[in-house]
């Protein structure tokens, strides 16, 4: 070793030449350019010093004892990983095409043939250093981008999607492209046992495509949990993403609610491929195409926006896909397309493994071609989403000394009352507000789920059959449900009179409590005697599609009574701890 370093931060050069004279000459020139210089007199020592000092530049003679320049260069280039290019220039007197070609083959980044003037040498060093700096810059940027992509992917899978509901029942395929591309899958349980599902595809790649994911997941979960309807959730998500994201960033998404109770699927597709409903036999029963620009493009949903209501059977499956599947390419550049997907999904439905069958089919088709976009699929079974309630016998568990408290309406701890009139009835959902009050005052508790169901059923009855005067007979067949829903939307839109008033009063006692619910509406009421008679008869009949809500409420309540010609309902919910 010679010429010990003088400047700490200067770049490091390694000169490998068997002539001490040549080493000296090159060192002087390099020092004039601000380098610290080490030198070695044969290839093997050159490699050893490369390992030890990790220089920024290597100058290499070709003909040397022990190990020649080509071999040393190959070794050095195979060792240089990481961010630096470590440019290597051969310095030689062999002015032949062969020498030039072999130099580059061995991994050299350039060749300088003697004799050359100091000025030419310095110019060569400058140019190679410029390339090396650029290389390092690119490498650093690439690593940062890689880190961002990993962060985005981790965020999606660990922070957001690990909190999904019913992962044992809902099949989710998620295969991120090499550069993560912003697909998101969310599932959440509604208070009434329905399940909400979202498949989304943010524009862009990497971290850029995931900035909307956290607020999206939060809104979707919280609103579902609080009992907002799917339409309200969609409207809020759209507005939120519009406010949050720049104009060219948006979310293509499908939203689905599966309701075993209504035997219906509520579907909304904004910018994704068709949603499929398959029968048990693998036939396509419905295809729901995109009907709205993606979320976050316009400040409010288009005025005619509606959910599609599909009647479902227990064994049906709803399948959501993102465009990554149908646009997957093989070596010939062909796309996987819908026909292949439908075929694979059909087989998957029949043999009970939609996710695996479709994924295998896509992989077979692509023959190992690199994946350009995220591949996502959600496979949802339509059965098993009913809420299971035990008949509520809480009142029997109350100690006799408290029985007086139970029926004493005078000593309520608090009362809450809301009357909605006219158009507000169609724009405001009072149930999440009521539940919010209860949670704020009394804290979160398991038994509020039953209360939510009671409130929802009674309010919907008052609105639908009272104010809107909808006939529940429509709901006696599957197709009728969709028709009912349509008629309901139409009547809500033009609603400008009528009211529904909700009153809650809370009566605590030492080992439980009671909530008294009164809901009054402006409807015409109904024939109370006939109603009670029918209900008495129905107990022995096969379960019917309509009226199931009231049966459920009856099971949950300690008492339920219709008054004032059916325009006032009083219910009492009791729990013990």
């Amino acid at each position, binding site marked *: 070793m010679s010429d010990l370093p003088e400047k700490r931060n200067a770049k490091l050069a390694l000169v490998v030449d068997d002539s001490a004279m040549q080493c000296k000459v090159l060192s002087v020139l390099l020092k004039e350019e601000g380098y610290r210089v080490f030198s070695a007199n044969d290839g093997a020592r050159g490699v050893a010093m490369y390992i030890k000092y990790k220089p920024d530049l290597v100058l290499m003679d070709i003909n040397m004892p022990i190990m020649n320049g080509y071999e040393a260069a190959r070794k050095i280039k195979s060792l240089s990983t990481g961010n630096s290019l470590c440019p290597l220039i051969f310095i030689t007197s062999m002015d032949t095409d062969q020498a030039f070609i072999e130099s580059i083959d061995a991994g050299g980044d350039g060749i300088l043939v003697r004799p050359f003037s100091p000025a030419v040498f310095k110019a060569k060093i400058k140019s190679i250093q410029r390339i090396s700096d650029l290389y390092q810059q690119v490498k650093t940027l690439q690593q940062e981008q890689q880190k961002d992509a990993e962060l985005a992917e981790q965020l999606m899978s660990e922070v957001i999607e690990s909190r999904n509901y019913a992962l044992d029942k809902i099949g989710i395929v998620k295969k991120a492209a090499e550069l993560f591309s912003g697909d998101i899958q969310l599932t959440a349980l509604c208070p009434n046992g329905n399940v909400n599902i979202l498949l989304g*595809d943010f*524009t*862009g790649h990497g971290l850029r495509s995931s900035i909307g994911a956290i607020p999206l997941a939060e809104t979707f979960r919280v609103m579902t949990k609080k009992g907002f309807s799917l339409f309200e959730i969609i409207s809020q998500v759209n507005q939120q993403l519009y406010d949050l994201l720049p*104009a*060219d*960033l*948006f979310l*293509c998404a499908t939203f689905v609610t599966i309701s075993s109770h209504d035997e219906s699927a509520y579907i909304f597709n*904004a*910018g*994704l*491929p068709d949603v499929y409903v398959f029968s048990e036999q693998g036939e396509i029963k419905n295809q729901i*195409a*995109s*009907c*709205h*620009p*993606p979320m976050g*493009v*316009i400040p409010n949903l*288009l005025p005619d926006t509606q959910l599609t209501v599909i009647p479902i059977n227990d064994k049906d499956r709803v399948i959501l896909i993102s*465009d990554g599947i149908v646009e997957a390419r093989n070596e010939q550049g062909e796309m996987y397309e819908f026909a292949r997907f439908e075929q694979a999904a059909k087989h998957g439905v029949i043999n009970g493994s939609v996710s695996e069958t479709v994924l295998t089919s896509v992989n077979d088709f692509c023959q190992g071609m690199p994946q350009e976009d995220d591949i996502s699929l959600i496979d949802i079974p339509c059965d098993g989403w009913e809420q299971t309630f035990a008949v509520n016998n809480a009142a029997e568990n109350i100690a006799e000394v408290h029985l007086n408290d139970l029926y004493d309406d005078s000593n309520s701890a608090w009362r809450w009352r809301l009357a909605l009139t006219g158009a507000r009835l169609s724009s405001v959902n009072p149930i999440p507000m009521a539940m919010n009050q209860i949670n704020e005052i009394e804290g979160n508790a398991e038994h509020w789920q039953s209360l939510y169901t009671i409130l929802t059923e009674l309010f919907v009855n008052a609105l639908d059959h009272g104010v809107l005067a909808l006939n529940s007979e429509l709901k006696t067949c599957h197709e009728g449900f969709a028709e009912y829903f349509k008629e309901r939307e139409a009547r809500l839109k033009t609603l400008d009179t009528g009211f529904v008033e909700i009153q809650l009063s809370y009566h605590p006692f030492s080992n439980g409590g009671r909530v008294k619910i009164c809901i009054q509406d402006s409807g015409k009421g109904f024939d109370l005697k006939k109603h009670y008679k029918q209900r008495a008869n129905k107990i022995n009949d096969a379960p019917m599609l309509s009226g199931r809500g009231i049966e459920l409420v009856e099971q949950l309540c300690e008492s339920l009574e219709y008054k004032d010609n059916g325009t006032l309902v009083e219910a009492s919910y009791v729990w013990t701890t």
Partner: protein
Amino acid sequence: MTVKKFVGEDPKSVSIAIEDRFDFSLHQQFRDAYSSSNNSGTRFVLELAKATYMDSSALGMILLLKDHAEKLSGEVVINNPSEAVNKILEIAQFHKLMTINV
């Protein structure tokens, strides 16, 4: 991949034609094609007859153009999208946001 820009005799009519793949790689070129047109009431006509493919970032780029046009109280019109491109516009329901002449 090319972006061609024509400004007619009326400076309030700017035509931008895209050929081959309309994707993120055209980002800068596409922006350059409209950002200097700042006459109020400008009509931007996007010719997509020769575009064979469009991805979601291209949809985003069109939305940026729409923002630009709306700031000038102008409009964006899409002309003659090829079948493949029209399908993507349809899934994104862009005909509800701007005029598309098929």
